[in-house]
C-alpha cells in the first residue's frame, strides 16, 4: 500500500508541474533562508561553549574613575587574580595578558602574532583547552609556552614541537611544553600561544602584588557551585579595601561578567574578540520565523486550493472502497514528498549561498558550526512538520467528505476553505510589508547617518600614526608638521590625542567660577594642537581658535562645544573660566572660543559636552587635510617627508572618511542582509500568490466565459479579478503598519540621532506590494480574459 501511495504521489506531482515547482521552490527558499540564519544564530549563541565549566566562569571587570565619569575596562590589576583565588567561594583564578603584536622567531623565520597570551598555570583547570601533548602543568615554569596545532604546523612543520624553542621579542627563548587543539572561532579567548605568566618576571614586565596599576590583566574566576554573584562582589570589594590604597579604592568598582555573556557585552573600553549584537540575533530569528511562516502558508494554501480539484478523485476512491484513513495517508504522502523534495533543494541552495554570505559578512561572523547530520536533522524536521501540517488540513477535510455522485461532476470549493486561504494570504502580505518597512527604515537611518552633517568635514583628511609622549617623539612630530607647511597640496596638519570616529573616553569633571565645588559637570576632553580646528573643518561660532602666536592659548586656553556651554550654563562663554581640568600639571582654565557641536562618535550616542585643550605631549595621531585637487602630489610629498623623519618606520596612513565608513559597517550589513531576506520573503509570497491565482482563475474560467459572452470587455474582466486581491493587500497593510511601526521604533531606539520614519515609507511598502501582487494576478487573468469563451464553456 505504501508503494501505491508513493507512486500516486509522484505521478500527481509530475502531472501538476507548475504547482509542484512553485511549492517546492517556495518551501526550499524558505528553508534555505532559515538554515542560513540558523547558522548565524547558533554561531552567536554558542560563544564559549567550548569550555565545559563555562557556567561557573566569571570575568572580573573594572569600572574606573570618579563617580559620574566611570569607564569600563575588561582587565583588572595584576594582584587581583592570586588574591581572589584565596576567597572561599572561588575555586580557582587565572590572569590573561595579551600581546597584540608579539614578534616570534624560529629557525630564521620571524612572524608577528596577534594571539599571544601570558596566562597563569591554572588556565587548564578553568578553561577546557584540549592538550594534544604536554601536561596540565605545562605553564608552571617561566618561559614555557603551549601552542596550537596549526601554529605547531606553521613554525615546526612536521617536527615534534615539544622541547623546541621560539624566540620572543628577539631575546627570550620560550620552550614549547605543550600542543593544544586549535581553539574554535566562537570564543573571545582565541589563543594560538599560551605563555606562562611567570615569564613576565624575566621579561621585566611582572607587576605581582600591584593593586594600583593598569587594566592589562583579564582576570577569570572559577566559582564554586551555587555562588551568589552579589556575595562574591562584596568579598572582592572587601579584598580591595584591605589591600589597595585609598585612592584606588575610591576609583575602582568591580563587576562580574559571566563568561557566556561576554560576547554580547559592550561595556568595556577594550575587549577581546568580535562583539556580538543580541538585537541582530533577535531580528534575524524573527525574520527566519517569518520567512518560514510565509513559505508554510504558501504550501498550505496551494495544497488546499489544489485539493479542491480532487473531490472527484476522493469521490471515486471512496466509491471504490477507500476509507478515510486511506485518503489521509495518501494526502500526507503527497505533501511529505513535496516538502522532502524541498529539503533537498534547500540543502543545495544552502551550499551555494553559504560561502557568499560568509564572505559578505566577513570576520568569522558565520562559523560553520553545523555538521551535515545536524543540518539534515533541522531541515528534515522542518520538512516533516510543514509537510504534515500542510497535508493534514486538506487530508482531514477532504477525506471526511461523502461522495455523492452528483457532486463528482463539479469542482466548486467550499466557502470556509477559501476563508482560510484569504486569511493566510493576508498574513503573508502583512509579513512582507513589515519586512519591507523594516528594511526601508534601516536603509534610511543608515543614509541619514552617512549623509547628515557631522559638524566637521571628514573628506580629504588622512591620519598618520605619531607619538609625542617622548621628547624625541615631540621633535619628530614638530619636524613633520613644519615640513607639511611647505607643500601647496597640504592645507593644514595637526596632532591630536584622537580624532572623531575613534573611541575617546577621556573624561574630566569641571566647574565654573560661580559653581560650588560640589557642582562638578562631567565633560569629555581631548588634546589637540593648533590647527586642529582648521584641519577637521570645525566651525568656531563664538570667540576664536587657538593661535600659535599666543603662548597663553597653549598654556591654559580651552575650546568648548555648544553642548558644553549649555551644560555649564555659561551665558558669555568667551572669557569664562573653568576649574578642575589639569593636564601635565598645567591647569586649563580660559575659554577662548566655542565650536559648533560635532559628532565624535556614532549617531547611536548623544553629543556630549567637550572641552579641547593643547597638550604637546599627548599627540598620538596626526591629521592632515589635503587639497582635493592635489591629493596624489601631496601624498607623495608626505611619504617623502615621513621617510626623512622616520627612516626605519614604514609609511602608513588612513583616510578619516574610511574610519567613518566602518562605524556603520554592521548597520550597513544588517540592512543589506535584511534586504536580501525581505526580497526572498516577498518572492516566496508572490510565488504563492501566483499559484493561488492560477487555481482561482481556473476555477472561474466558466464564469469568465459566460461574462464574455454577455459582452464583458477584457479590461473589465481583469479588473473584476484583480479587485479581490487588491482588497486583500490593503487589509494586509492595515494589519502590518502598526506592527512595523513598533518594530522599527524599537530598533531606532538604539540611536540617539534617528530618523522619524515618514508615512511615505508605509505608502511605498503598500504600493510595492500592491503593484507586485497586481502584476502577478494580471499575468494570469489577462491570459484567461483574452481566451475564447467557447473554449471554456464547451466542456461539461
Amino acid at each position: 500500500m505504501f508503494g501505491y501511495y508513493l507512486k500516486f504521489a509522484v505521478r500527481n506531482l509530475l502531472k501538476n508541474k507548475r504547482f509542484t515547482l512553485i511549492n517546492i521552490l517556495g518551501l526550499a527558499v524558505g528553508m534555505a533562508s532559515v538554515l542560513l540564519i540558523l547558522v548565524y544564530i547558533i554561531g552567536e549563541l554558542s560563544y564559549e561553549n567550548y569550555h565545559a565549566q563555562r557556567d561557573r566562569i566569571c570575568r572580573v571587570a573594572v569600572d574606573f574613575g570618579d563617580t559620574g565619569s566611570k569607564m569600563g575596562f575588561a582587565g583588572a590589576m595584576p594582584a587581583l587574580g592570586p588574591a581572589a583565588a584565596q576567597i572561599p567561594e572561588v575555586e580557582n583564578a587565572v590572569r590573561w595578558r595579551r600581546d597584540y603584536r608579539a614578534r616570534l622567531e624560529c629557525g630564521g623565520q620571524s612572524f608577528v602574532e596577534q594571539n599571544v597570551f601570558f596566562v597563569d598555570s591554572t588556565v587548564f583547570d578553568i578553561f577546557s583547552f584540549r592538550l594534544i601533548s604536554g601536561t596540565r602543568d605545562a605553564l608552571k615554569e617561566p618561559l614555557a609556552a603551549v601552542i596550537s596545532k596549526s601554529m605547531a604546523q606553521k613554525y615546526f612543520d612536521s617536527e615534534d614541537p615539544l622541547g623546541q624553542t621560539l624566540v620572543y621579542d628577539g631575546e627570550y627563548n620560550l620552550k614549547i611544553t605543550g600542543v593544544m587543539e586549535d581553539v574554535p572561532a566562537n570564543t573571545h579567548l582565541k589563543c594560538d600561544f599560551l605563555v606562562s605568566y611567570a615569564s613576565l618576571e624575566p621579561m621585566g614586565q611582572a607587576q605581582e602584588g600591584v593593586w594600583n596599576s593598569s587594566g592589562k590583566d583579564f582576570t577569570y574566576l572559577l566559582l564554586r557551585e551555587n555562588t551568589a554573584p552579589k556575595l562574591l562582589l562584596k568579598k572582592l570589594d572587601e579584598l580591595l579595601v584591605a589591600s589597595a590604597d585609598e585612592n584606588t579604592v575610591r576609583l575602582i568598582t568591580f563587576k562580574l561578567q559571566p563568561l557566556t555573556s561576554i560576547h554580547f557585552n559592550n561595556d568595556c573600553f577594550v575587549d577581546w574578540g568580535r562583539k556580538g549584537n543580541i538585537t541582530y540575533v533577535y531580528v534575524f530569528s524573527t525574520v527566519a520565523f517569518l520567512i518560514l511562516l510565509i513559505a508554510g502558508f504558501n504550501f498550505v494554501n496551494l495544497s488546499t486550493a489544489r485539493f479542491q480539484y480532487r473531490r472527484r478523485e476522493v469521490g471515486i476512491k471512496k466509491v471504490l472502497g477507500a476509507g478515510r484513513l486511506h485518503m489521509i495517508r495518501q494526502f500526507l504522502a503527497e505533501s511529505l514528498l513535496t516538502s522532502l523534495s524541498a529539503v533537498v533543494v534547500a540543502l543545495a541552495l544552502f551550499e551555494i549561498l553559504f560561502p557568499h554570505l560568509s564572505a559578505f559578512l566577513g570576520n568569522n561572523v558565520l562559523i560553520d558550526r553545523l555538521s551535515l547530520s545536524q543540518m539534515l536533522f533541522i531541515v528534515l524536521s522542518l520538512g516533516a512538520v510543514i509537510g504534515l501540517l500542510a497535508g493534514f488540513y486538506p487530508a482531514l477535510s477532504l477525506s471526511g467528505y461523502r461522495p455523492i455522485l452528483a457532486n463528482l461532476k463539479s469542482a466548486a470549493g467550499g466557502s470556509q476553505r477559501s476563508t482560510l486561504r484569504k486569511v493566510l494570504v493576508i498574513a503573508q502580505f502583512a509579513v512582507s510589508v513589515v519586512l519591507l518597512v523594516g528594511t526601508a527604515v534601516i536603509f534610511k537611518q543608515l543614509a541619514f547617518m552617512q549623509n547628515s552633517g557631522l559638524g566637521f568635514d571628514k573628506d580629504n583628511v588622512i591620519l598618520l600614526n605619531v607619538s609625542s609622549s617622548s621628547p624625541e617623539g615631540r621633535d619628530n612630530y614638530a619636524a613633520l608638521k613644519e615640513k607639511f607647511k611647505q607643500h601647496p597640496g597640504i592645507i593644514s596638519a595637526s596632532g591630536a590625542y584622537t580624532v572623531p570616529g575613534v573611541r575617546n573616553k577621556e573624561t574630566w569633571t569641571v566647574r565654573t567660577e560661580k559653581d560650588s565645588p560640589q557642582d562638578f559637570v562631567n565633560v569629555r576632553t581631548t588634546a589637540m594642537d593648533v590647527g586642529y580646528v582648521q584641519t577637521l573643518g570645525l566651525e568656531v561660532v563664538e570667540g576664536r581658535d587657538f593661535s600659535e602666536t599666543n603662548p597663553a592659548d597653549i598654556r591654559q586656553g580651552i575650546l568648548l562645544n555648544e553642548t558644553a556651554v549649555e551644560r555649564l550654563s555659561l551665558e558669555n562663554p568667551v572669557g569664562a573660566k573653568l576649574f578642575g581640568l589639569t593636564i601635565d600639571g598645567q591647569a586649563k582654565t580660559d575659554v577662548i572660543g566655542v565650536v559648533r557641536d560635532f559628532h565624535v562618535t556614532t549617531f547611536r550616542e548623544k553629543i556630549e559636552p567637550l572641552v579641547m585643550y593643547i597638550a604637546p605631549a599627548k599627540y598620538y595621531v596626526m591629521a592632515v587635510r589635503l587639497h582635493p585637487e592635489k591629493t596624489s602630489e601631496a601624498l607623495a610629498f608626505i611619504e617623502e617627508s615621513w621617510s626623512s623623519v622616520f627612516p626605519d618606520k614604514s609609511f602608513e596612513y588612513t583616510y578619516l572618511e574610511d574610519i567613518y565608513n566602518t562605524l556603520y559597517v554592521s548597520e550597513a550589513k544588517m540592512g543589506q542582509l535584511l534586504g536580501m531576506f525581505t526580497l526572498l520573503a516577498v518572492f516566496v509570497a508572490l510565488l504563492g500568490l501566483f499559484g493561488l491565482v492560477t487555481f482561482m482563475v481556473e476555477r472561474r474560467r466558466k464564469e469568465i466565459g459566460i461574462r464574455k459572452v454577455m459582452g464583458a470587455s477584457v479590461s473589465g474582466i481583469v479588473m473584476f479579478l484583480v479587485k479581490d486581491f487588491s482588497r486583500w493587500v490593503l487589509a494586509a497593510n492595515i494589519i502590518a503598519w502598526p506592527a512595523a511601526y513598533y518594530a522599527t521604533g524599537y530598533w531606532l531606539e538604539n540611536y540617539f540621532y534617528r530618523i522619524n520614519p515618514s508615512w511615505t515609507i508605509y505608502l511605498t511598502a503598500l504600493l510595492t506590494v500592491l503593484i507586485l501582487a497586481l502584476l502577478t494576478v494580471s499575468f494570469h487573468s489577462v491570459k484567461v480574459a483574452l481566451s475564447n469563451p467557447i473554449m471554456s464553456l464547451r466542456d461539461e
Partner: protein
Amino acid sequence: MIQLSDITKYYKSGSINTYVLRRINLDIKEGEHICIMGPSGAGKSTLLNIIGMLDDASEGGYSFLDNDVHSMKEKQRSQLYKDYIGFVFQSYHLIDELTVYENLETPLLYKKIKSSQRKSMVCDTLDRFQIVGKKDLFPSQLSGGQQQLVGIARAIIAEPKLILADEPTGNLHSEEGKKIMEMFTRLNEEGVTIIQATHSERNASYSKRIIYLKDGWQVDSL
C-alpha cells in the same frame, strides 16, 4: 435482494423542501436486469445513490440482503457496499494518474487483498474484457468506449452481486454503447444483478424490467 418501501428524498432549501423522490416502492430480486428510465431531473441518479448507499433517504425503509441499511453504522454499511456493490459512471471516472492495470487494482487494494491474489484477479479481468494489451495505458490514451469498458471491469473486479450504472453509455456513440450493453447482458447472464439509469430507449430494451420515474414519482409509463 433489495426492498425499498416509501423511499422519499428531499433537500431543504430555506423553509421549502424540494422533493427529488416521492414514496418509491421497489422489490428487486437477485439476478434481475433493471432499467430506471425517466427524463432529466426525474430522480434516477438519486435513486441509484440511495440504493448504492452513497446517499441517505429522507424517509422510508431500505433493506439490502435482509439488512436494514438505515439502521446500520457507517462502517458496516461501507463494508456492505464494498463487498456487494460496483459502480459504473456516465463519465467513466477512471483515475487519470493510474494506468488501466492500476485502476483495476485500486478497489482490491482498499479491500486489503493480498498482492499475489490481486495480480491474478486483475489479469483474469483484463483477459475477460480483452484489454490485456491496454493494461499499461493511461485513461487519456483510451477512447471513450474503451474507458467505459475499463470502468465496468473495475466495477466487477471485486465480484459484486450488484452493479449500479448511471447513464453508462451517455457519453458514447451508438456502436460503443451497443458493446457496453452487450457486456452488461453477459454479466447479468452470469448472475450479477444490474440496475442502470438511462433515458435511452435502446438501452432499456436490454433489460427485463423497466421502472419509470417522473418528477420523483414512480409511474407506469412515460
